[in-house]
């Protein structure tokens, strides 16, 4: 290969990369409070005639516990892992367990979840935003994530959570439930101590959401770092996507600092 040819190839590569780079959007979009916890559910099947569903956690969190869907209804906590099919829904699994016309609206009205055209999608997104802000006004405020303090809402009785579905859930044995607070010391001196409250988690999650897959059952035996949590392990499995985000430092680092 002559020098010129090599040069010419270099120039073309250079131009292509220039175009590619300018087109790529390298900054992550900020998550808005009304979109926090939204999950796009869609599989690329052979006949993609329907649009993906945008599942909104916030419309479900005021009625049901996390456990109900993620344990009893077998929804995975990772996007794209559940692989819900139409026949699943029709036979009463996943969404179909509630969306049968009795517990919640029937799935026969496809448009409620699958918007068809782009214009429809925009419209439903706009409606969802309106609904969210209307709902948010009735709830205790928070600074991060959804900007709704779900824990407080449950505490104050503003939302009533259903934990079981007849015919699907088994009633939990209450004697297994642990309400202990677990204090933890952060590695860096000067940071407030961490208090993990079992009782606040148990209301939503029961035991099986966290143990033993994310956390071993023995106290203090799960080695965690903040970096791993941010990467989506341990606490980061929920806190960062659906439950209040990790930015809300003081919610976990909650014990005032006592130095010496």
């Amino acid at each position, binding site marked *: 290969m002559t020098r*010129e040819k090599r*040069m*010419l190839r270099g*120039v073309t590569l*250079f*131009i292509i990369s*220039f175009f590619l*780079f*300018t087109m790529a959007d*390298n*900054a*992550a*979009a*900020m998550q*808005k*409070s009304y979109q926090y916890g939204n999950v796009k559910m869609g599989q690329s099947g052979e006949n993609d005639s329907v649009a993906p569903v945008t599942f909104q956690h916030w419309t479900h969190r005021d009625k049901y516990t996390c456990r109900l869907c993620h344990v009893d209804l077998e929804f995975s906590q990772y996007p794209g892992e559940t692989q819900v099919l139409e026949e699943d829904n029709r036979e009463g699994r996943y969404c179909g367990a509630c969306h049968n016309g009795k517990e919640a609206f029937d799935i026969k009205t496809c448009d409620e979840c699958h918007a068809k055209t782009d214009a429809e999608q925009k419209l439903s997104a706009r409606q969802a935003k309106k609904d969210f*802000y209307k709902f948010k006004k009735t709830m205790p*405020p928070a*600074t*991060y994530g959804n*900007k709704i303090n779900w824990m407080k809402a449950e505490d104050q009785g503003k939302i009533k959570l259903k934990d079981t579905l007849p015919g699907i859930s088994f009633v939990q044995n209450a004697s297994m439930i642990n309400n202990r607070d677990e204090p933890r010391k952060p590695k*860096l*001196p*000067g*940071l*407030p101590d961490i208090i993990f409250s079992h009782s606040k988690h148990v209301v939503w999650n029961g035991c099986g959401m966290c143990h033993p897959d994310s956390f071993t059952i023995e106290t203090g035996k799960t080695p965690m770092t*903040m*970096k791993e949590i*941010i990467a989506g392990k341990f606490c980061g499995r929920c806190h960062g996507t659906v439950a209040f*985000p*990790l*930015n*809300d*430092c*003081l919610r976990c*680092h909650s014990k005032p*600092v006592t*130095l010496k």
Partner: protein
Amino acid sequence: MFFTNYRSIVRLLKRRCGMYRIAGMLIVSFFMLCGCNGSKSVPQDATLASVKPTGQVDSSAGQETSTVSSPCGGSVLFDKMDATMYQGDPEKYGDVIFSERSLKNNVDPVVFSHRTHRTRYTCRVCHLELDFSMKKGESGVTREDYLDGRFCGACHNGKIAFPVDIDRDCDRCHVPIDSKGQYTNKDFAVKGASQQKYGDGVNWVESLQTGVISPKTSLYNKENSSSMPLPEHLKKERLRWTAKSPKYPVSVAVSFPHEAHVKWLDCANCHPDIFMVQKNGTVDFDKDKILEGQYCGVCHLTVAFPMDGCRRCHPRRKKKK
């Protein structure tokens, strides 16, 4: 910066003929048009370009230059830095023009002045509590939003600041902008503030320290407004490190004060989305990226003091005794 490339292309074209020549000419003209003035070029959106003020630093413009980085050494970096230096009117530094929606609806765009707001509120109030994005055009504020008490409407409701729902006051925010991107902004002086020669001319960090300004840190929480206390080792001293890059044959001392930032910002404004929480945990962190508007460049190109204040982050190295 493309001079070397340009010459080689011309030399090459002399030997070639036919299709290559035409293609080469196109390439060269393309570079001349877009690449070389990348930093000063207007954004691709034609509607936006018409209202862009001439001197204003825009992060999207910075991105174009950096993407064509070539391994030519330090001079490229300096070119880029020159391009991001703010040369406009200090009064207009940090102004953001909300034009995406208003132009579609034939309304004059809103000119938001960071300067007037910084004396009263810290960054975290709007960029965290009120959901304003740090990226231009991402917040998507609608009239419906602010009339319902969100975004601007959280303060501009007649109780905290002048209301937005009365027709007569529209022009306090919606300012006409001519085709050259010029507009008149109200005179606003920060009384007694310490001065600086670049950016908006006000040293905000010092002004806050001396108590000339006392911005509120939260709209909702009265006592426990700010974020988590800093760990001990960050309270006592600045983070210091030496920045090295395989691209450039220089190494520079960097010093970062957490203390000065925490007074304005929440932990969450930077961590963990912009910077990882661990030291050296942020990969890909270099000056090029900063000049593209990432990392420090998220604020320190457009609102916080611009890159002209070199010594504020890159102190002179102390000689070893």
